[in-house]
């Protein structure tokens, strides 16, 4: 890994690249072990059930394991190490106090009685209230464990809503814009819906005419990311929502870009029926190299009856319990609820972190966050616009999309530019998404990068643009200062090796 301070805006000295690490299995030797658990018990298991298949887990000592994972960690780029401008991912700083307080809730089982978990319920209840206020919605389910699961949950809610009105059989279609995240059509299909894609107009908005002609009595809902994946606010968002409602369908808000709206606008005031929150984006919870996340679903009152159960209830005396799991008297029924996505409160350990972040920021911090995120993106765009084509030349919100089409003609693609950025000590932006922009590079700086870092990133991007012009082969040859050169994804897919195999 190249190590740079990100404060000095020139080409930093490259440090030695950390060595690769053997696999656990290659480090192991029969007979090595630690002593972490007691081993004096004998288990009585009928012979027919006993394991006869050999169990070749690696045998290692603790010092080896510590070195192994320390070395692996050193091969990773992370927000702790530097700017991570992945568009649509909101890779902001992950505060450390959030991790520490999460450990206060580690030794609790979700099947404990509500009597022994009043602190959990109080926190979750307040978190629901805060999320409702921030999104302008009425009720919140904390159960979905990620954005995509929240989309799926919301579409189940849509289905139940239409069923209640006797229209489940007729409303079989979900509309998504062509700029949508892949999860949107995938969630719709998983929920048994057909998917219709509508195009974007010349300004990067949903093409309202195309949407209107796609709408009809067979449509269950429309899924909209706002700001959209181009980083642009839907200029006619209310007309879009009105058109969808006019057709008897519902509007789903994909909250992936909610960071832009903190203190700026609330989906509930714009016409959305619901919105999900990626707390691992907007509310600073660490993304853990791919997960965990949490995806609370925030809805307007008319969708509440269909939310997953149980619901947390607060009594007048300030105590809490679950409506469908009352222990002192007969519990409430499921009613019109879709059922259960995840027992009780979803990824609670993640939600504690989000809650802590929200308590830290408070009202004013929340209002400032959206503004700073938008300021950073516009500033970075201003620094880059003379070197790269801008996909849609409008004022972006918290992220923007450049096109490397010009550089591609010169011989260096968006992918190549991303790889060259790795050599400059930065992570690559999101490339080749959204699909509607050729050679797309989607850049989201977030509010937590200092101006010096934004300047350094822009300087790196400019150097690469200049190299694309003068020496595209050098850009194509990147990265040179990372633990590995470009990886052969074609062979990986043609001849999949998906696990270590013991040499025979």
């Amino acid at each position, binding site marked *: 890994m190249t190590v740079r301070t990100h404060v000095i805006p020139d080409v930093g000295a490259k440090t030695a690249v950390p060595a690769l690490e053997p696999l656990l299995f290659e480090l192991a030797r029969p007979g090595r072990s630690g002593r972490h658990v007691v081993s004096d018990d004998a*288990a009585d298991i009928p012979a027919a059930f006993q394991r006869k298949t050999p169990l070749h*887990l690696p045998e290692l000592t603790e010092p080896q394991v510590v070195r192994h994972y320390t070395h692996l960690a050193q091969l990773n780029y992370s927000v702790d190490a530097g700017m991570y401008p992945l568009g649509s991912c909101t890779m902001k700083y992950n505060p450390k106090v959030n991790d520490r307080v999460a450990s206060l809730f580690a030794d609790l089982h979700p099947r404990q009685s509500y009597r022994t978990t009043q602190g959990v319920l109080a926190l979750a209840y307040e978190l629901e209230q805060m999320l409702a206020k921030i999104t302008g919605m009425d009720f919140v389910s904390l159960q979905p464990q990620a954005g995509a699961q929240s989309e799926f949950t919301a579409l189940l809610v849509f289905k139940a809503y239409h069923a209640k009105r006797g229209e489940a059989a007729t409303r079989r279609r979900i509309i998504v814009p062509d700029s949508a995240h892949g999860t949107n059509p995938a969630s719709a299909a998983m929920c048994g819906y057909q998917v219709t894609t509508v195009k974007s107009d010349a300004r990067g908005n949903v093409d309202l005419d195309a949407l209107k002609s796609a709408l009809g009595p067979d449509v269950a809902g429309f899924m909209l990311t706002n700001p959209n994946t181009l980083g642009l606010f839907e200029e006619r968002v209310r007309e879009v929502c009105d058109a969808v409602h006019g057709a008897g369908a519902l509007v789903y808000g994909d909250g992936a870009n909610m960071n832009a709206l903190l203190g700026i606008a609330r989906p509930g005031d714009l016409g959305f029926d619901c919105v999900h929150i990626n707390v691992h984006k907007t509310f600073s919870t*660490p993304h853990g190299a791919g997960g965990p996340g949490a995806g609370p679903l925030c809805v307007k009152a008319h969708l509440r009856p269909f939310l997953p159960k149980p619901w947390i209830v607060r009594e007048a005396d300030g105590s809490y319990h679950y409506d469908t799991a009352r222990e002192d008297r007969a*519990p409430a029924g499921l009613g019109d609820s879709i059922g259960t996505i995840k027992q009780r409160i979803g990824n609670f350990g993640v939600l504690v972190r989000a809650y802590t972040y929200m308590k830290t920021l408070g009202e004013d911090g929340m209002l400032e966050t959206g503004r700073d995120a938008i300021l950073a993106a516009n500033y970075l765009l201003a620094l880059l616009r003379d070197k790269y084509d801008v996909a849609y030349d409008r004022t972006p919100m918290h992220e923007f999309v450049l096109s490397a089409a010009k550089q591609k003609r010169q011989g260096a693609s968006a992918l190549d530019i991303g790889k060259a950025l790795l050599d400059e000590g930065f992570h690559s932006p999101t490339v080749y998404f959204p699909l509607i922009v050729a050679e797309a590079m989607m850049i989201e700086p977030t509010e937590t990068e200092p*101006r010096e870092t934004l300047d350094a990133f822009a300087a790196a991007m400019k150097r690469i643009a200049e190299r694309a012009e003068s020496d595209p082969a050098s850009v194509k040859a990147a990265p040179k200062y990372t633990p590995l050169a470009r990886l*052969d994804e074609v062979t990986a897919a043609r001849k999949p090796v998906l696990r270590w195999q013991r040499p025979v």
Partner: protein
Amino acid sequence: MNANPYSPHTEEDRAAMLERIGVRSVDDLLTAIPKDARFPRLGLASGLSEMEVQAHLERLAAMNRTAGSGPFFIGGPIQRRYIPAAVPVLALRGEFLTAYTPYQPEVSQGTLQGVFEYQSLIAELLAMEVVNSSMYDGGSATAEAAFMAVRVTGRKKVVVATEVDFTYRRTLRTYGRGPELEIVEVPTAKLAASAEDAACLIVQHPDAFGSLVDVRQIADAAHAAGALCVQVTEPHANALLEPPGALGVDIAVGEGQPLGITMSYGGPHLGIFACRESLVRQMPGRIAGQTLDANGTRGFVNTLQTREQHIRREKATSNICTNEALAAITAAVYLSLLGPEGLRAAARAGVARAHALAKRLAALPGCAIANEGPFFDRFTLRTEIGGWDLRNALIARGIQVEATASHYVDGRREGRDDVIAQCTELTSEADADALVDAVAQLARSPETVAAR
């Protein structure tokens, strides 16, 4: 000072940035937003200092009774187990914790190799050919297994045993509303006879009540009817029991939390998902694979991505994007620290202590073990008091157990009225004594308990 303490901008910075953009204020950048919706007040409290927020969270935490604060026998898919000190130290390193999905493999080898090793370890443990890089949890993995079986077989009926954990069955039913699957619940004993027209049979072994199940016979029946066999499993059990891959299982799923991951009141956890290699293109979720870099050096990438939502969109095998990669790496750290003998020892401890405890409880007047056959590391206790009342009386004495009847469905209590006792290597002799003494006392005076 900034209201957001993590914001680095000084007023000077903001002014310089605005000037470079060519606007006077951030407001000038927001003209696309309907005027009446702009700049809402949210009604949140003022922000707190770190010190205040720490104290506030400590106050909330003090309102809970932690599992370790007294005898604890609640378990099922989520288990209180010993977590070696090195596990959080390694898995929560910032380089793992604050990385994103490994979209740039050249600077993500730590994640990718870590996940590849996780896949390899779980494949070995379950004796399954292919393992993905994780689902959210055991429940969603079970539902996704059913969806996968529906894709593979082209059938829409899913048969699940009533002895599969109730939370998994609930999630399955909820998920099934999407594609409108026919979900049939039958006792495990009738599973093999219910395979006709089914996409899959879903069996749990050891089951929710701890009983051991003859999975091979169920897998054979499924295959004879053209259905798949899905086994819900628990990681530690595979150290001692014949694993799914040796029982003819096509898809094995389960909750990976017991592998060094904190209970955290339900998540984040780890959905284990494994299948036969021949089915890999229908598998949901990310998969790490081995390859070479441009210099011929071994490295790892996410592969077979055309199954996934970012490429296949509405034709993807699942909508999953964010998964539980960090939990997968945590599980791998745990397994590498314990090794095969450590894992077997932990599993043996649970079994031995459950069996010893069951023997003592069964000897009490009015008490019996309700499992019909052999059981693993948890069992059900039937008393004259009834499970629900016994559980509440035990909680009042500081002993936490689960009642089988605590599982509500639509306003009524579901299932048998027993209590379940889960044992692990953390179940101490003193815990067992406390439970036996309390049950003995309560069983002597069932009227008092019922009158509560």
